[in-house]
């Protein structure tokens, strides 16, 4: 049930109506749970087995871990002064070990499924190649596997919850159905955001009454999402697909144009999906966490990842980066380095201080790359981002000195613009890994972009990418609208165009909404013959 289908539209409308008309508000959330499973089963009944498995295993593991914690506290309290400090410590360590075992088993089981379904063919192919065969012609067979809808998203969300419970950051949910709702909330299951239990769960099960302002802002957000998806993303993808189908037929100029269009499409597509999700949630009285904050205004790759797919970044930071960066191993390295001769120099001290952070960044982005897909190009994508972050951390003092030497006013507007453009170029290079057929393809596309710039031929080629002049004009208008709105949001530090609109007169609001609807109706890519292209992040 793609977001751009009438079925989804009607389904959502019915869910909202039933949700608010349900007489027993205390159990209103059951309507959401029912809707989630209808939505999920609509995608395929086989998928439901996997989400049920995750729900039940994580639910039980969380309760078990929390019970162990509680019992351990009670036991220590009960034993009081009869236990020595060492005895208490030993008991705590034993309990902690049990907790960790349960945590590890639950995570291995759930990530195991994800890894098996998503990466087994990739791994088998790799091993076959190592053994001197082709990827699909070696001793390890390629399996015909299907990927359950939203598996990466719900697995990460569930895992985050379990780790939080084990850390004592949140209480375990005792009601299985309520927990099932947290895992399967339909607006976010397809492509996120990856919400934390503390942020989302209580809202899902709270009683909600219809509020006009929520309906208004929610609908405006949904409208904005559809504009970005149907007018911009699904138009741009036509040209991108034409080029990527066989990029060797095109000049570097056209490949670069496809890369730029991809930057536009990816942002429009992903943020559109999130906006539609958030808009629906908002109408249902639920505030979902923001997943984008104008990423192309980022002034560094680090900043970009704080603005792009924020919830994935936050998840990685909480559950991978921090544990690694402050692990005994990494802190030990850092300490050793500081104490060494090299650590006594200014550069050495800096490197010793930031080394855990920078190596953790590379590891995190390697995981981010793998999260995106089972392909060497995604590993390269992760390493590219992680590598840049690592070097920017390690070389920060050098850059600072350069700025001082060149008398660059780092607070100036010009410098900020320069950094934005520089960051965008680095991001764009990373996108080549996305659109290329594989790692070597990405490298070749980059090479062509650098050495094969032929403007006149490129112009002719671009005209033959399946989009007419009017389409490019619509893309330009769409991009301009997105850019202006982004600037206004950045300036006012707000996250939705609806909030901007609230400050305007009725006439302006009326005109903007009407024009947006008409632009979607007239310029949107939809109707017979249109494949409601899955949102890009659905595949992840």
């Amino acid at each position: 049930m793609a977001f751009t289908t009438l079925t989804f539209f009607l389904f959502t409308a019915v869910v909202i109506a039933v949700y608010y008309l349900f007489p027993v508000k205390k159990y209103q959330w059951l309507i959401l749970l029912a809707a989630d499973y209808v939505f999920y089963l609509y995608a395929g009944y086989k998928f439901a087995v996997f989400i049920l498995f995750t729900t039940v295993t994580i639910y039980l593991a969380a309760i078990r871990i929390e019970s162990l914690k509680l019992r351990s506290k009670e036991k220590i309290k009960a034993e009081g002064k009869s236990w020595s400090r060492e005895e208490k410590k030993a008991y705590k360590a034993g309990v902690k070990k049990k907790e960790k075992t349960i945590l590890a088993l639950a995570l291995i089981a759930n990530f195991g499924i994800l890894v098996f379904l998503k990466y087994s063919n990739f791994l088998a192919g790799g091993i076959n190649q190592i053994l001197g065969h082709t990827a699909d012609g070696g001793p390890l067979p390629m399996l015909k596997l299907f990927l359950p809808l939203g598996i990466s998203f719900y697995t990460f969300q569930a895992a985050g919850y379990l780790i939080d419970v084990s850390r004592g950051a949140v209480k375990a949910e005792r009601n299985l159905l309520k927990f099932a709702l947290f895992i399967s909330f339909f607006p976010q299951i397809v492509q996120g955001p990856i919400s934390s239990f503390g942020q989302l769960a209580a809202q899902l099960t709270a009683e909600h009454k219809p509020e006009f302002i929520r309906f208004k802002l929610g609908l405006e957000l949904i409208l904005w999402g559809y504009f970005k998806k149907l007018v911009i993303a699904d138009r741009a993808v036509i040209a991108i697909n034409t080029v990527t189908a066989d990029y060797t037929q095109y000049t570097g100029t056209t490949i670069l144009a496809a890369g730029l269009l991809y930057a536009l499409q990816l942002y429009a597509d992903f943020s559109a999906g999130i906006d539609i999700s958030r808009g629906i949630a908002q109408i249902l009285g639920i505030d979902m966490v923001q997943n984008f904050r104008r990423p192309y205004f980022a002034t560094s790759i680090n900043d970009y990842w704080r603005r792009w797919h924020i919830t994935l970044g936050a998840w990685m930071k909480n559950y991978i980066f921090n544990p690694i960066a402050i692990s005994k191993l990494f802190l030990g390295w850092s300490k050793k380095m500081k104490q060494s001769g090299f650590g006594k120099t200014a550069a050495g001290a800096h490197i010793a201080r930031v080394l855990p952070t920078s190596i953790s960044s590379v590891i995190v982005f390697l995981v981010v790359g793998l999260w995106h897909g089972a392909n060497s190009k995604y590993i390269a994508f992760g390493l590219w981002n992680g590598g840049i972050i690592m070097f920017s951390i390690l070389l920060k003092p050098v850059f600072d000195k350069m700025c001082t030497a060149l008398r660059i006013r780092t607070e100036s507007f010009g410098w900020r613009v320069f950094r934005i453009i520089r960051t965008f170029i680095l991001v764009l290079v990373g996108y080549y890994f996305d659109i290329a057929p594989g790692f070597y393809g990405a490298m070749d596309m980059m090479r062509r972009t650098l050495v094969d710039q032929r403007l006149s031929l490129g112009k002719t080629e671009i005209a033959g990418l399946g989009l007419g002049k009017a389409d490019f004009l619509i893309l330009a208008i769409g991009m301009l609208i997105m850019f202006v709105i982004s600037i206004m949001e950045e300036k006012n530090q707000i996250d939705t165009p609806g909030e901007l609109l609230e400050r305007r007169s009725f006439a302006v609001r009326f005109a903007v909404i009407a024009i947006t609807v008409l632009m979607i109706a007239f310029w949107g890519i939809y109707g017979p013959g249109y494949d409601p292209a899955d949102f890009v992040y659905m595949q992840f």
Partner: protein
Amino acid sequence: MKRTYIIRLIKIVSLVLVLAVILGLAQRYYMRDTTNNSIRLRGFELEDPHSLDVVVLGASEVYSDFSAVEFYKQTGVTSYPYAYAANPVTFWKYELREILKNQKPKVLLVETNGVVYGEDMLYKEASVRYLADNMECMPEKMELVSEYGTEDKLSYYFPIIKFHGEWQARDRMSNALTLAKMDLRGYSLLKGSFSHTAHKKAEAKHLDYDPEKKRELDPDAEKYLREFLADCQNSGIEHILFVRFPHQITGEKSVRAFERCNRAAEIIREYGFDYVDLDAFCKDAGIQKPEDFHNSDHLMMTGQKKFTDFLAKYLTDRFDLEPTRLSEKQEKEWKECCRYMDACFAYYEDYRKNPTEDDEYVIYEREKDIKEIEKYL
């Protein structure tokens, strides 16, 4: 508090209304099929109830070879070509219902080319679309769409779903303006005429064929023909005549079509209706082959005039047709149509003197042609 709710409601309703009006208008005139076929069918819908004495049903032969305005000029009898490109027999039963919804013609002339089609032509999406887009009656439209619609069903009720992406298509604005002006005017100026003006003559390598030979129809085509004939028997129309308009037999395909028409004639007669191959009267009509033909199936504008003049005489003689009794307003409108048709011929004559390279040029009731025609009024 109440006031707030009322103001809110007014705002929402006004937004919905404004959008509905804009989208409704866009869909009615622009984001839809706006080809000559739709213009012709819309023109038919605009005819005053019970104001047409003759209706000609069929495919492209009908609107290429027959001019309702010329027919009126010759006989004073009102008529209209209920026709669109490649109109297959499949949908004739629906078309008959559409015709009878507002009209009570004395004569229904059915051009039989639609029965010779094979399966590839019987269920063409375009045919369903032409018809559905111009059907006002919801139950019949629903029946047609559910039975034959192959695309997203909703798009037959909201053509904007299909056509919104074609806003840059050639002639779209011109044709949309035509539809809008036709609605405002309340009638069609050229009554669905579609005139080929190609200056290159159709090449004719006439094949020998057996005029008596019959070839079986596609089984589906025969089924639909029989259904249609049964409907005709119950239609209450005084005279129903099945005909074949002039064709040139220039290839195997046209021989096959001719032979299938012979078989169709047999079936038609089974139901008590008459079938006439009007091609046999070409000489009487003064139609020259290949000079008056655009291609093997369609006449040029010169041929259209000659054939319509012939048909006028043929039908009035055969069915004792009297000039249609019209109201003052209707008569004024038909006279205006005649004025336009005369100007159209004058435009065509001039065009022939200086033909463009565009060998497929056609004149029909679209804004850009009307503008040219108006120079000759």
